[in-house]
């Protein structure tokens, strides 16, 4: 067996790093060359000399970092070479533009799953099964208590939640990139036909999605000091950062909810402080992670992003899959 130093990809300063190509994956500090799996804030940082991503991620990234970054884009499945290593992006089904990244060097395949899900999502490309020798996978929801309901069921629950309280304004908190657009897409297919407002940070992402050809229902940008009567019975999408503090004082007679996979657990739901929780996630559930591990045919698996102890033990004991530990 090789030592950790000899792996093609390893942890360095808490980030995934490929030494042979001198390239970082989703680094949390400025570096020379950064591969970006997707445009969520915890997957990139400002100030890298060069970014490499899919076309869609590049557009979303520019929306967040600004236009004057140096960014190289590739299509899904298109191979490119850095220092003799073949690299390619593949759809990961997490949000628009999100990708897994495959490395091939000397006939050895490595796959970084990025954040991923297998569930249906009409706002991004479906997860693609990619075969590999080494798999580096996220495991945010790596326990069997996590089993997602179909998104249309959740959307119907949300629709019912709003229409059951016509005298109230329903505030639904969700991540402004990805989750918000997916929810809008799903909710537009339910019986809820009232007005939908969205916060500026969500509104601008909706526009980027539309420009990239994704069908997103029209929403009204929420302005401060809306007349109470005007927004009664409607839905307002807001980023979770606004759930605490004075922002909510702009509204009267509201009900609040949070859309997140964590909301499947009652204790977390209660503790969250929201009236209601909708368990919908853009990450894979337990079955999803197991399916990806198996179908990737990886002989060696690493986990990051999440508590992997139970998942690792289960794979070793029940599925005889070799789970390795990264040295952080």
């Amino acid at each position, binding site marked *: 067996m090789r030592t950790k130093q000899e792996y093609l990809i390893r942890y360095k300063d808490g980030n995934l790093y490929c030494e042979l190509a001198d390239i970082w994956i989703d680094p949390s500090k400025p570096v020379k060359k950064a591969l970006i799996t997707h445009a969520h804030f915890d997957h990139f940082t400002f100030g890298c000399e060069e970014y490499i991503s899919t076309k869609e991620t590049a557009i979303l990234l520019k929306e967040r970092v600004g236009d004057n970054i140096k960014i190289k884009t590739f299509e899904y499945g298109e191979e490119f070479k850095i220092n003799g290593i073949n690299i390619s992006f593949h759809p990961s089904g997490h949000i628009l533009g999100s990708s897994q990244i495959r490395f091939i060097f000397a006939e050895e395949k490595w796959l970084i799953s990025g954040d991923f899900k297998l569930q249906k999502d009409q706002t991004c490309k479906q997860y693609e099964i990619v075969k590999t020798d080494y798999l580096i996978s996220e495991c945010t929801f790596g326990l*069997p*208590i*996590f*089993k997602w309901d179909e998104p249309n069921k959740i959307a119907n629950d949300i629709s019912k939640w709003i229409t059951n309280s016509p005298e109230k304004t329903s505030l639904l908190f969700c991540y402004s990139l990805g989750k918000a657009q997916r929810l809008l897409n799903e909710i537009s297919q339910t019986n809820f036909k009232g007005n939908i407002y969205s916060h500026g940070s969500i509104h601008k992402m909706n526009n980027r999605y539309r420009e990239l050809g994704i069908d997103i229902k029209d929403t009204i940008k929420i302005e401060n000091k809306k007349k109470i009567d005007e927004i009664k019975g409607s839905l307002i999408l807001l980023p979770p950062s606004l759930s605490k503090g004075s922002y909510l004082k702009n509204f009267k007679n509201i009900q609040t909810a949070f859309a997140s996979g964590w909301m499947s657990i*009652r204790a977390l739901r209660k*503790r969250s402080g929201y009236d209601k*929780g909708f368990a919908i996630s853009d990450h894979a559930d337990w079955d999803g992670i197991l399916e990806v591990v198996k179908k990737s045919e990886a002989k060696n698996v690493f986990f990051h992003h999440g508590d992997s102890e*139970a998942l690792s*033990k*289960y794979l070793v004991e029940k599925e005889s899959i070799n789970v390795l530990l990264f040295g952080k």
Partner: protein
Amino acid sequence: MSLKKFSELFGDLDSINSTNNKIEVLKNFFLSNDPVDNSWAIYLLTGKSNKRFISGRYLKNLFSQIYEYPHWLIDTCYLKVGDSAEVITLLLKNKTNSRNKKLSNISLNELLSETIPALSKLNEEEKNLEIKNLWETLPEDNHLIFNKILTGTFRVGVSIGLITKSISKLINIEEEIISHRLMGDFKPSIDSYEFLINKNINLQELNSKPFPFLLANTIEDKIFKNSINDFQFEWKYDGIRMQLIKRSGNVSLWTRGQELVNESFPELVEKMSHIKDDFVLDGELLVWNFKEQIAFDFSLLQKRINRKSPTRSIQIKYPIIFIAYDLLEINGKDIREIKLVNRRIELEKYFSKWQIKTDNNITDIFKICDLIFPKDWPDALTYKEKSRENNTEGLIIKKKTSKYSSGRKKGIWWKYKVDPMQLDAVLIYAKGGSGRRAGLYTDYSFALWKDKELIKFASAYSGLTNIEIKELDKWIRKNTVEKFGPVRSLKPEMVFEISFEKIQISKRHKSGIAVRFPRITKWRKDKKINDADSLENAYELMKKKS
């Protein structure tokens, strides 16, 4: 009504925070379902169904056995979820969704009156098979209710008071009457529900009603400008505030929370019913140390509060007393309008009469509160400081000329509580919480210095805000030295101010001291561990207070 409708009600109640909305939801539920199912719903929601058919451990083992799931994996999930019934519900989702069995549409009544009670008659093998069958045929969104009823852990954020309020609204009859009807052995049936929503009130129901309680305010400095002679002084007991009512021969015990608790204290009800007069008394219920004539800790009282129909041995082990401090009504005459001093004279008069005239001695369960007579305000302060010695919380100061009005009226009654004792201690262990605190480290142990060693002296879990709990949880995960099951030993680094009510010698603890009601009152981020207190400081505190 199908179980599904009740599941929906459960989901709604669980996700509504506003009391008014909960009442509205309940009211509509009662309106749209038939009486027998309504009676079962009330039975479940008021926590009368806490019978445990199988334990949480049994449930987990059964699941593990049927679906070949490793125990350790279920245990790991439990740490995140904090409730056996819910863990199994979530795991079942992973197992029964691909089944092809026909779903059952069992009613709440059928499930509770037939299916579940029938389980107890089966042998283990049959029982396991039946539970498996129910898991596979019950619709998925009924699993949580089913598992919770099985394990006797059905609890929602609905108090008996809320049920009372919603029925009261439904039929437009005062809450106290509904409380009275809900008292006792509520057997779910059409009749019991019809009785509950009967719009005709009988006389006996009217007779049990308590008066609104008068509450004390926290002391304000301006009171010291008044003459000490304007006030009556009493000890502030740490028990359950109650009105003891006897009208037309019937005794009722009402807590301040409008709960009728006759069933928890039958010996008091029995004794008081021998008194010839009718009356309404305001006072405090305590578990009493008759030898030393002081109250036992509140923790002993807790052993009595939630126990209905206590056995004789429980009654002897935790002897109660009702200490009356006011007389509000005597033989049908409402005397709340007369001055406190005069009510006190009446109270004393009747108490001595009852002592002599009652067939059996009432003083082994009933007395009137002693008064204290401080010379001046500094003297009152001295009394207050002494209150720990007789297990009281401080003083209650009442204006002698006051009427008995309702609520927290200003300027009539004051509470003058003794300050808590405090030490700065170092966090050394953390343990995972359960229930609402599942998945977070929320049970903490604290240590004091002894020479160069940190010795554990108290455990506490309350006092931090949710934000602080999250922050501390993060720190705990990063600064764990060792794990022992659910407990982590931690790098000594964090200092907290711990407040407590009492400190005494204890041979059972390594530190040699035990404290009462320890709680976190401040996260002392400004302090290093060397600034924390030592055991010696604790001993000094003990000396000073005794």
